[in-house]
């Protein structure tokens, strides 16, 4: 089947992820959406790699996973600490600083 469709899928996933970031309140969920976006990127990489017939894309995909993992570590650390001090993971509650 036509590999271009994977690209469309990737774009779709990316957009879904982005939309999620914009509309969801819970920090964890927002973060998950970001992960989704990263994975959409992965899909794109792999697809292109396939199309170009070189492995760069696939290698990058691995890197991305590692990075995503690292982000999870840092992100969760921060979000958890926030949750513990506020007893809420809503990004909207965290709006002390404005204007």
């Amino acid at each position, binding site marked *: 089947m036509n590999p271009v469709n994977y690209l469309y899928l990737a774009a779709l996933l990316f957009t879904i992820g*982005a939309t999620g970031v*914009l509309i969801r309140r819970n920090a964890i969920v*927002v973060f998950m959406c970001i992960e989704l976006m990263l994975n959409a990127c992965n899909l794109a990489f792999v697809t292109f790699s396939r199309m170009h017939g070189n492995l760069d894309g696939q290698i990058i995909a691995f890197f991305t996973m590692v990075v995503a993992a690292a982000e999870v570590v840092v992100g969760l650390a921060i979000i958890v600490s926030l949750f513990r001090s506020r007893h809420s993971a809503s*990004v*909207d509650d965290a*709006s*002390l600083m*404005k*204007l």
Partner: protein
Amino acid sequence: MENLIALLIAAPLLGAAVLLVGGRRLDAVGHWIGTLLSSVSFVFGVILFSDLLSRDAEDRTLTQHLFSWIPVGGFQADVAFRLDQLSMTFVLLITGVGSLIHLYSVGYMEHDERRRRFFGYLNLFLAAMLLLVLADNYLLLYVGWEGVGLASYLLIGFWQHKPSAATAAKKAFLVNRVGDIGLSIAIMLMFTTFGTFAFGPLLGAEGEPGIAGDASEGRLTAIALMLLLAACGKSAQVPLQSWLGDAMEGPTPVSALIHAATMVTAGVYLIVRSAAIFNGAPDAQLVVTVVGAVTLLFGAIVGCAKDDIKKALAGSTMSQIGYMVLAAGLGPIGYVFAIMHLVTHGFFKAGLFLGAGSVMHGMNDEVDMRKYGGLRKYMPITFVTFGLGYLAIIGFPGLSGFFSKDKIIEAAFAKGGTEGWILGGCALLGAAITAYYMTRVMLMTFFGEKRWQPDAEGHEPHPHESPRSMTIPMIVLAFGSVFAGGFFSIGDRFLHWLEPVTGHSHGDSPVSALTVTLATMVVLVVGVAIAYAQYGRRPVPIVAPRGSLLTRAARRDLFQDDFNHVVLVRGGEHLTRSLVYVDHTLVDGVVNGTAASVGGLSGRLRRVQNGFARSYAVSMFGGAAVLIAATLLMRAV
């Protein structure tokens, strides 16, 4: 010899410097220093005069070049002096009368603790006035011109603690400034037209004519009119006459010297000096004559209504100068007589003022003639000298005024044509009115019953004759007022003396000199008669009657001041006030407004930063979208 000219000015200038900088330690001798230096200047004047007489008529022009003053490109102004018959006449008048009045002031100002400064100012005035008449170019003349203005400002406002005096001084200076605009513009015009404003090349010297004639008549007319404006300011001619009356706030010697004998006549000097220009601009000359005629009537009418003796005399000064200006406007026919009347007027008007001063001196500075009366018994010398001055001014046959004024009236008729008739008529009418108001003054002051009463503190004034230092000058001036005219006119001495400078031509008068003289006599008698009928026969009311509309108008200077007040003062105040408002709200407001609006914008944009991470994300997302779209768009177009 030439080098004396500078000394002529230097002497009083030195006096002024010493007296003003010297400080209190000079109080004791200040007045004598001043008098001494002014008379020194007079002596120099006499020496130079004799020197001039010793030369033959053609080369009676001395010039002295001190240094180059403002050399900028083509603009060359030097500090240089020119002494010819015209300026010589003035030098003698100024220093002579000036010295006398210094002497007079020694007595008159005796009780004023600021007498030293008074003499300082007087000397300053002499210096400036001499500079005015001796300058060799118009710019230097301008310096003297404003210098006398300054001196007059200081002297009118000498009693500064009186607000009225301060105001009068300011008014005088301002009105003069308006005139000065004329002078400066005239100088600019000369510079742009001729590339110079020095007398020599411009007006011609040693016989050969200057380049003044080369310019187009239009230019000359413009220059002449500007000069006239200047003259109006300085010589209190309509429409710039309003300051002279108020100037009487100054001490009487000042009124005598500055506002009667010398400074106010500077305008006439200017016109006569600029003969070469005026001759080339007949239209301008006509304007001059009109101004003169109007003023001589104006002044005379005002003089009729004033009860303040000095104001009355001021009115008469105005009208006498009107005569001179009229004469000067007549061109070569009149120049000489203008100056001649100027000199004789210098004598008798100064005398009259000194007399008035003497009267006030004896009457606790009372100036209202309605509170005088019958003073001839108390101050005989004053009475006599004043009387002679009176006869002179009304043109009593044989006295100075008779000769000079008569000549002017003749000349006016000699102008020829309808304007000749009109001008002559005005001059005659003026003579009549002069006779009227001077008789009025005379009668109200020296004749009739004594009308003075105790003043507020109940001091009964004790009229007495003034000290000798005051009477002597009056006597001397009286002599002048009696004999000067005759002396000048016999054999046309004055004419021959002045002719080389001003030139002279006998117009063809439609009426013979004799007729004119007779006519003058007639109107004179009529004027005196009416005055006598009004003030001699029946007692003078202490409180002025309401009087006819004309009288009331005349008392108010024919509403001229009211006009100034409403239009200029009020209007000016409103203008400035509104401008201050505009400056604050509009000009400043625009700037502050921009600042404020930026601030407001900032305040609104701040709201975007609402603290919600998701809305930040939205803006990022939107931004990205725009970025992508724009990039694609760029490629598309």
